[in-house]
């Protein structure tokens, strides 16, 4: 009889494993990689205009007294299409949004904005991703909230989906 019981031990151990794993699968964990730049001033940079007729972006623009949203995007990025309606909605709420266009061409950016909407005030062209990396950003899209003194207050990694809107507006209000 004892021998019989021993045979069930592997099954019991396996179920302990399965339950533990199921718990941690659904535990609300924070899997995002936070930028080490939060709470620090934006890096010094000057980016040329990405599209004709629109100013480029430099670090001074981000420390002009008013909090701003900085969206890192590219015309070749699919999730950027997904988040376009949300950015337009933020613009409707009168939040100022600037952009850093990563490894992109003026005509592609213009076509992208014509097709998916244009929420931006300034667009800087970051040809080799240097400024992006200086921001501590690791992919596109990413969105930062910078306060009036040029300190990075908030980072959103990945596309902004409707359920993220409240958090971003809140972060913007907090940066005032």
């Amino acid at each position, binding site marked *: 009889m004892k*021998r*019989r019981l021993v*045979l*069930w031990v*592997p*099954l019991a151990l*396996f*179920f302990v*494993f*399965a339950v*533990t*794993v*199921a*718990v*941690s*699968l*659904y*535990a609300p*964990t924070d*899997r995002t990689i936070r930028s080490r730049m939060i709470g620090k001033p934006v890096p010094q940079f000057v980016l040329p205009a990405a599209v004709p007729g629109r100013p480029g972006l430099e670090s001074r623009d981000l420390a002009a007294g008013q909090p701003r949203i900085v969206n890192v995007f*590219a015309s*070749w*990025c*699919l999730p950027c*299409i997904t988040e376009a309606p949300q950015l337009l909605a933020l613009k409707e709420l009168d939040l100022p949004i600037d952009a850093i266009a*990563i*490894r992109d061409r003026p005509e*592609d950016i213009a076509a992208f904005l014509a097709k998916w909407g244009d929420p931006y005030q300034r667009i800087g062209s970051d040809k*080799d*991703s240097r400024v*992006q*990396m200086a921001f501590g950003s*690791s*992919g*596109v899209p990413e969105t930062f909230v910078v306060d009036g003194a040029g300190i990075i207050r908030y980072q959103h990694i990945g596309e902004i989906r409707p359920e993220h809107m409240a958090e971003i507006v809140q972060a913007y209000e907090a940066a005032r």
Partner: protein
Amino acid sequence: MIAEAGLAALWLAASLSLMQLAFGAFALRQGGESLLGTVRPVAAAQAVLVAISFACLVLLFLRTDLSVALVAANSHSAKPWLYKFAGAWGNHEGSMLLWVTVLAVAGGAVALFERKLEQRTLIATLAAQAAIALGFYAFLLFASNPFERLNPAPAQGQGLNPLLQDPGLAFHPPTLYFGYVGISIAFSFAVGALVTRDVGAAFARAMRPWVLAAWIFLTLGITAGSYWAYYELGWGGWWFWDPVENASLMPWLAATALLHSVTVLATRDSLRAWTVMLAVVAFSMSMVGTFLVRSGILTSVHAFAVDPERGFFILILLTLYIGGALALFALRVGTVREGATFEPVSREGALVANNLLLSAILGIVLVGTLYPLGVEAVTGEKLSVGPPYFNSAAGPLALAMVAIMAAGPLIRWRRDKARDVLARIAVPVLLSAVMLFALVLLAPGVGILPLAGLVLAFGVGAASVAPLWKRNLRRTPLFTWGMVIAHLGIAVSLVGMASESAFTKETLVAVAPGQTAEVGPYRIRFDKVDPIAGPNWTAIEATLTARRGDGKPFTLHPQARMFSSPPTETSEADITTVLDGQLYTVLGKPDEQGRWQLRLWWKPFVTLIWFGGILIALGGLLSLVGRVRRERRVKLEEAYA
């Protein structure tokens, strides 16, 4: 059209696997014998259909059809064709489709070619195989359809994770998958044998080639994965105890134990229950491994699919298969007779010891990999178990196992005399002692584990070739050669590992053009940096001139690469291989004064680690060929008798 054809073929294959399971189950019942003959062709047809489906996916990637969501998310028209090809499985959906393809094709091969197994056990095996495949089909069709269309189609795709853009990695996952899937066949055999209560020598002989083949692929997969991490990640290490690496190591450990116990079962009809248990454990480990990698539950440098829903789906499959098999094992194994007995001092005894040590190491790796999960589930605290735990817990056991491995082949089956065994291993032991003496004298301050490793490696090397001693080499069976070469491979790898950990020299410097640095026997001058461009990346490339003593100078070009889609930076180490080691150079970041960080390593005999891995796999291949050839000959002799 191609995408729809691929999806249709996948649905058809899934329904055939359902049919295979149902027919198999009926055939095993009283009065269902009329269905016995239908299961084999169904299994073969399923294999063909799923292969068509996978071919469709590869075709979509080769054409960069961006109207397919998976292609758009993982490919880019500017990518070299090899990576478009590899892109088909360099992502979650594609790799799952590859998995089920290999599974079904292997199942088809069993259906067509397996002749040693009793008919009813074969049918039960094919039914078990269909049950596994069915779960994966459901997963693909309901949770991660690789053929989903995207509307609107984007103008350009996102590209493959640049870390994966490497020829080694293009073929690394398929290699591991062949291994995992080969083990799933062993698992199905075990389930089939439990169902029909037919665990014996014939069953072991039928299962052995599959275990061997799976083990060869796992060995190659781990070796390649280790070398990839070593040169691609630019960290200079060859094993990180990363959860994803552990996910491939655990099935290998279990498969190695299974390989040896299946040999005992095939030759001596012993260790029946243990062999079945190991087959279940080995498959559990490959499933758990897949789960850990696919669910994103453990954060890792190479996990690339983070999604709790999919993780939950795989977890359910895992619970059904492993839970089911363990329950079947507990219910049935009591009725499996233990078979032949043996004395403690015997080849069987050594193999049991080796099996127990392998299982203990497996336990250590499993605990170390899962412990952070358990802690997080209970206390919510995040922590990680680092290399110190694994090295200090698994290292000594691994060395003990290697010592037993040296003696094992020199012990007779069934019973032997301890004194005779000692006499046979006298020469290797003597060689180890000489080595120990030399090392302590010539290289003082070597850590205890590397020292033990080096000393043992020489003893094992000598002991491995001892079975060939005084034999007619041309008449030695191929599988004996296989064993000798595989064991020698372990010794060679061990020399590499111990030497790398004992003698590596590292230098980290910030240098301006024209300045020099030293590492080990090399002087390295930093000449300049240049920007360069590749097909879908740009890079900063350094030019270094290295020179060993008065030898001829040569140049190295480590790069820091930037990929545009998705934007990622990778570091391309430049490595020079010489007979006694490797010079490993990595270009780091610039500082404000115009100096560049340079990381230099001199790693004596490090290449032996992977060379040993290749030898181990080659040994496995020779054994496999030897076994298959002998089977053929026996069959021919029977036919003409």
